[in-house]
Every structure is written in structure tokens, then in C-alpha cells.
């Protein structure tokens, strides 16, 4: 755990340093040109402001399809997830405050000083180098300080697009209700932000006195060296054994299953878990080989990935998904884990309905679902089959759904059949008497690269076939969600982990 925190801290710092380093190069250049050219100021700073107006999480998320598209059109092995797209987004965010610092710094120089610079016989270039630039440094360093604080915070949001950071602790802690882990992640990020801020505040104060140019040169020089160092540190492990990268979506069961996959890999290869990924992000990553494996569900693959809308029986869907994923995307389905985690409509125990068709007046009440649910074809099918017309639908984090239902915030939720909280919170599942919801058998999908280059590991994943029954999955989920256990601890009774 401690070493994990340390390695996430280092990964986080790496993201910050590289983004700030590259952002400084662009920010200083744009700032310097913009300060001397109104057109550049309007266009470049305008564009940077526009980027800044995009919420941080949205900007990070936008990198996923953008990079996937770049990889697609260029034919280069560009990955849509991981560090590189995260770094591009962080860098874009860091540019504006730095560039604006330079411009503000130069613009706010006392006109008498500029007049004097000419009067003592400086050329335009000398005035820029000896007067304007040094005097702009305090404001520039203030901009750098802002950029650094933003970047440290924003890097925690890089987790959902597959970059390791302190956000891993926060996201998976939130998911599994390990708030100590959340607090640890937040505290570590805050400590990083505060230390860097203190360092830069000190430099900024120094730059208000003598030799601001020299102070700034030291600061940016140090950042430059740290950036180069951070890049080198990042390149080094890739020459060693590449870790097996296992993905997990943003709910407890996925984090637990990632630990089962980790067990299956065994101790001979290092394993890295990338948590809190969305379905498309995870699948695109397995397709491109950035991820080696994760657990998908047949119904999700059927509707979200293969975009099928027809209703078929369990066995047909299972074999059709396996065939289509390999044929269309090169992704292999190597194991059927033996349980199903379907969406199911869940109500409080005091609701007399047993079947969805019994909902009656509740069919028009408040519905809650995870971020994906109301956009999915299952929801369309449910509405059409049962005439559901909720007064309002609320998309929320899966970890909050059950609380929202039991406290009366919503009346019906789209829960998951394996969720331990259904029993723990005295809720009950409505049966799908008209068969609108497709089957959701948990399957292990692996990348083409893994199947080709490391077939022995693919074979170990295949050996997980039917090794988890529904009761065990529900018990695990309950142990983590309500019992305070960690995902790694609950899977110890699985054969692969013993």
C-alpha cells in the first residue's frame, strides 16, 4: 500500500513536471510573441482562454477520441488512453496562465521605465532583453504558480483516461468506500501542491528584487531539468519488462475482478491496474493494445460496442459477441467467469411491486441510473416494453445510487444484479417479466497483442472460466462496499489467488 502510494505520487509528479515543463516552453514563447504583437495576443491567448473554459475533466476526456482518431488516420501506434493524452490535456491547460503572466508582466511595466530604456540608448532588442523580460518575470512566475496548482489538481482527473496518478487512490477509494484511501490521495496531492507553491512563491518574491531574469532562469532551468528527468524516468521501465495492464471500469465489482486477473497473471510479471475507465475507453485501449485485459459484460458488448439492438438468447449472444469482437476488432474473449451482472430495476422493500410490469404509478416517478444507463439501448428497450415514463431521470455515480434509493432521493434505480448493497440495504430487484434486458455474462477480454505475444498469460486468464459464481461475486461486492475490505483482500479465497 505504502509503496503503491509512493509510486502513484511519483507518477503524479511526473505528469505535473512534464506538463509544466512543456507548458512553459509554449507559454513563454506565446507570451513573448503576444506581448509584442496584438494580433497574436488576441488569437493565441483567445484560443488558450477557450481551452481553459473547457472543464478539466471534459478536456481530458476529449483527448481519448482525439488520440484514437489521430492513431486511426495516421496509422501510427498512438494510444487514446494513458499518459500521453493526459499530458497533452494538462499541457494545454498550463499554457494560458504562463503566457498571460508574461503579457501582463510586460504590459504593466511603468511607461517611464520603457521611455528611459530608449533614452539611455537601448535598441528594441536590448530593451526587451534587459528591461521588459526581466521586469515581466514576477508576473510570469505568478502565472507559473497558478499553472502548477491547476496541473497538480487536474492530474488527479487523469485516472479515468488511464494515466496513473494520485487520482487512482481517490477514484477507487470513492468507489469502494475506502475513504481513508480518498483522504490519503487528497492529502498527497495537496502536499504536492503546497510544496510546489511554496517553492514558487519564494522564487516569485526573489524575482521582485535584484536580477529577476536570473531567478527566472534558475526556476525555468530547474523545471526543464526536472522535465527531462521525468521523461527519462518514464522511458526507463519500458526497456524493462512491460507490465501487464489490466483495466477496470468505475465500479467496485470491476476493481475486484481486476484483482482476480492480477492473481491469474501470477508473480512472474508485474501488473498495473488502470481503474475508473469508461466502457469505450477500456475497450478502445484493449483494442489498441494499451490495455491487455479487462472484464466486459456480454450485454454491454452487444449494445455499446457492437451496436446491436436485437433481442437474442444468452448462448447466441455469448458466441456472437466472441466472434464479432475478434472479427471486427481483434479482441479475444478468453473466459466466461460464470456469473451475470445485469442491469436490473431496483426498488425499496416497501414497494409492493415484484415485476417491472407491476410498477404502476411508480413508472412515472424519479429514476436514477449510472452515467451510461439512460443513454443505453437497454433503457430504450425497457421504456418501450413497459411504457416507463419517469418524471425525471438522474444520472449519478454508481456508488451513490443505492443510497439515493434508500434515502428516498429517487424511487427506482437501475442497479446491478450482483451488487451486495441490494441485500445490505434491504432493497429488492424487480423481475424483467417481458425480457427487455439482455444477458450480462461477465467475460474476460484480452488484446490481440497479449494473445499473440504472451499466450501463456492469455491461457491463465482462460483458466478463470466459470470460477466465480453469482453468490461469490455478490459476497465480494458486499464485503468491499459495506464491510470495509479492500478488493485485493476479498479475492484471496479465489483459487487463482491462493
Amino acid at each position, binding site marked *: 500500500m505504502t509503496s503503491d502510494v509512493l509510486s502513484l505520487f511519483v507518477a503524479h509528479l511526473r505528469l505535473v513536471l512534464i506538463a509544466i515543463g512543456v507548458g512553459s516552453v509554449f507559454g513563454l514563447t506565446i507570451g513573448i510573441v503576444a506581448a509584442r504583437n496584438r494580433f497574436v495576443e488576441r488569437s493565441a491567448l483567445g484560443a488558450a482562454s477557450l481551452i481553459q473554459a473547457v472543464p478539466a475533466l471534459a478536456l481530458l476526456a476529449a483527448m481519448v477520441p482525439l488520440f484514437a482518431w489521430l492513431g486511426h488516420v495516421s496509422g501510427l501506434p498512438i494510444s487514446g488512453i494513458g499518459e500521453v493524452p493526459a499530458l497533452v490535456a494538462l499541457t494545454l491547460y498550463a499554457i494560458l496562465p504562463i503566457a498571460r503572466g508574461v503579457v501582463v508582466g510586460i504590459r504593466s511595466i*511603468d*511607461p*517611464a*521605465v*520603457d*521611455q*528611459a*530604456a*530608449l*533614452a*539611455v*540608448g*537601448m*535598441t528594441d532588442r*536590448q530593451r526587451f532583453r*534587459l*528591461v521588459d523580460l*526581466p*521586469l515581466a518575470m514576477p508576473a510570469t512566475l505568478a502565472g507559473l504558480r497558478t499553472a502548477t496548482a491547476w496541473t497538480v489538481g487536474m492530474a488527479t482527473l487523469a485516472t479515468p483516461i488511464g494515466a496513473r496518478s494520485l487520482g487512482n487512490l481517490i477514484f477507487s477509494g470513492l468507489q469502494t468506500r475506502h475513504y481513508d484511501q480518498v483522504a490519503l490521495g487528497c492529502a498527497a496531492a495537496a502536499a504536492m501542491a503546497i510544496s510546489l507553491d511554496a517553492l514558487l512563491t519564494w522564487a516569485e518574491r526573489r524575482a521582485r*528584487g*535584484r*536580477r*529577476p*531574469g536570473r531567478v527566472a532562469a534558475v526556476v525555468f532551468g530547474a523545471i526543464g531539468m526536472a522535465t527531462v528527468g521525468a521523461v527519462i524516468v518514464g522511458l526507463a521501465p519500458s526497456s524493462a519488462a512491460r507490465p501487464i495492464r489490466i483495466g477496470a471500469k468505475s465500479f467496485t465489482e470491476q476493481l475486484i475482478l481486476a484483482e482476480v486477473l492480477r492473481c491469474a497473471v501470477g508473480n512472474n510479471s508485474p501488473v498495473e491496474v488502470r481503474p475508473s475507465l469508461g466502457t469505450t475507453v477500456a475497450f478502445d485501449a484493449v483494442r489498441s493494445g494499451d490495455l491487455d485485459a479487462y472484464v466486459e459484460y456480454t450485454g454491454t458488448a452487444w449494445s455499446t460496442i457492437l451496436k446491436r439492438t436485437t433481442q437474442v438468447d444468452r448462448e447466441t449472444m455469448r458466441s456472437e459477441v466472441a466472434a464479432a469482437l475478434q472479427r471486427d476488432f481483434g479482441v479475444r474473449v478468453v473466459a466466461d467467469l460464470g456469473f451475470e451482472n445485469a442491469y436490473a430495476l431496483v426498488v425499496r422493500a416497501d414497494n409492493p411491486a415484484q415485476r417491472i410490469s407491476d410498477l404502476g404509478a411508480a413508472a412515472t416517478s424519479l429514476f436514477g441510473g449510472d452515467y451510461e444507463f439512460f443513454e443505453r439501448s437497454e433503457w430504450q428497450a425497457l421504456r418501450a416494453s413497459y411504457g416507463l415514463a419517469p418524471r425525471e431521470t438522474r444520472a449519478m455515480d454508481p456508488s451513490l445510487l443505492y443510497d439515493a434509493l434508500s434515502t428516498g432521493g429517487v424511487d427506482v434505480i437501475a442497479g446491478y444484479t450482483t451488487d451486495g448493497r441490494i441485500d445490505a440495504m434491504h432493497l429488492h430487484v424487480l423481475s424483467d417479466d417481458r425480457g427487455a434486458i439482455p444477458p450480462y455474462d461477465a467475460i474476460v477480454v484480452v488484446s490481440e497483442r497479449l494473445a499473440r505475444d504472451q499466450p501463456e498469460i492469455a491461457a491463465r486468464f482462460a483458466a478463470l472460466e466459470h470460477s466465480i459464481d453469482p453468490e461469490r461475486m455478490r459476497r465480494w461486492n458486499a464485503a468491499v462496499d459495506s464491510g470495509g475490505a479492500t478488493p485485493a483482500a476479498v479475492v484471496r479465497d479465489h483459487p487463482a489467488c491462493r
Partner: protein
Amino acid sequence: MRGGTGARVEIRDLVVRRGNRVAVDHVSLTVEPGELLVIIGPSGSGKSSLLSSINRLIEIESGFVRLDDEDARALVPHELRRRIGYCFQGLGLFPHLTVAENVGITPRLAGWDAARIEARIEVMLASVGLEPAAYRDRLPSELSGGQAQRVAVARALAAAPPLLLLDEPFGALDPDTRARLQDLLLEIQRQSRVTTILVSHDLSEAILLGTRIAVLVDGGLVQLGTPAEVVRAPAGPAVQALVDAARRRAVLLGDGTNATDGTKAADTAGPAT
């Protein structure tokens, strides 16, 4: 301090435009080497525009400025400015440079070697009454108004220019400091014989400092003469108004020093060379 001999400044038919306004309207005058010419006039009379067109901080519209028979436009502006000391009310001391670095800036730009610059900084600081050891490493923010003004004068004269331009240099100072700096300027100017053109809106200052006074009204030169000539025979109502204003202020002091003050300044300044 030796600044070499002063330059002769010849201004002919000078027209300077600021935006759509004609700020200096066909002015001609000659300033002899070592002379201290004071340009006075009410606000907006074009005196600052005239001054800063000499070192080309403002470009001239027509006419010419010659320094020792060399057209100011024949030089690139920064080369010209390194030969002309310039000091203005805003001072514009470089806030990130020490007193010594501020004073040494023009010699440094002109490519003097370090030892010569150092020696020059010592001499200049001493000549403006600042103990070099106590002041050289201070930042401008650590100086009083009068000390900053002295540094600005030292900076303007550091490269031993043959011409010094002063734009209301003492305007922002308290009367006591101002009087001491005026004395200092007279002393430095007489020793170095640097040709000096000083802009002021105050006739008393002009009488005290100037070997000759040029009165500018609405961009035109209305009178050019010694302080005594200007006081005794003001050319026109505008000059008369300036003289009256100075006299009223002097009378308010209550001991009739206006006449002696004016005469003394004119006498000690001697005839224009």
C-alpha cells in the same frame, strides 16, 4: 568630472506633430556649446515635444536638428541617444537594477570595458553627492525622491555626453531638495561645460538656472533671450503673464527678493557664449 566639450545644437524650422496636433511649429534656435538653455511655457506649449524630438524619442515632421553640424537623423536612434543624456520627471530608473547598474547602463551599452565603467560609476555617484559605498548596491525602491533624482542625473551624464536634456527634472521634489539639486546641477554643468537644455514651466527656475531662456507658446517660439531680457522686456502678453506670475509669487515671500533673485541669476550666468 570632465565631460569633454559641449555640443552645439542647431534647430531649424522644426515641426513636430503629436497625433493630429502640431506640437512644435517651425521653431528655430541655436544652443551654443556649454550653454544652459531653459525652455519655458505653459502646459501644452510643446516644450517637452521639442526636447524629446532632439534625441528622437519623437520623430520630427520637418526641419532638422544638428549636433555639431551632424544631422540627428543621420544616426540610428540608439547611437544618437547614447550621446545625449536625458532625464525626465518620471525618472524611469530601472527597478530591477542597482544604483550602480542604473548609472552604468549607457557606458555598458556603448561597450565600455568593465573597469572603466566601475570607475565612472564611482565618479558619477560622488559628483551627484551620493557616497558610492553606501548607495551603489541599493535598488531604486530603497531611495528617497531626491536620491533617486540624483541617480537619474548621474545616469544621464555617465557616458560623458556632449548634450544633456532635462525635462522638468525637479518637478516632483519638495522645495528644499529641489533647491539643492538646482545648485548641484549648476555646479555640474559649469564644471563639465555640457550643453544643457532644460524644460521648465517655472520662470523662477529658468531665471535661476538659465544662461538663456526660450519661451514657447502654442508650439511657437515667442521670445529667446537672457533671463534679464525676458524679465525686463517680455515679448507679448503670454510672456508678460509668466513674468507676472513669478513676480507675484516672489512678492508673497514678503522681502522683495524677486528683483535681486532675477538679477543675480542673470548676472552670475553671464552672457550667452
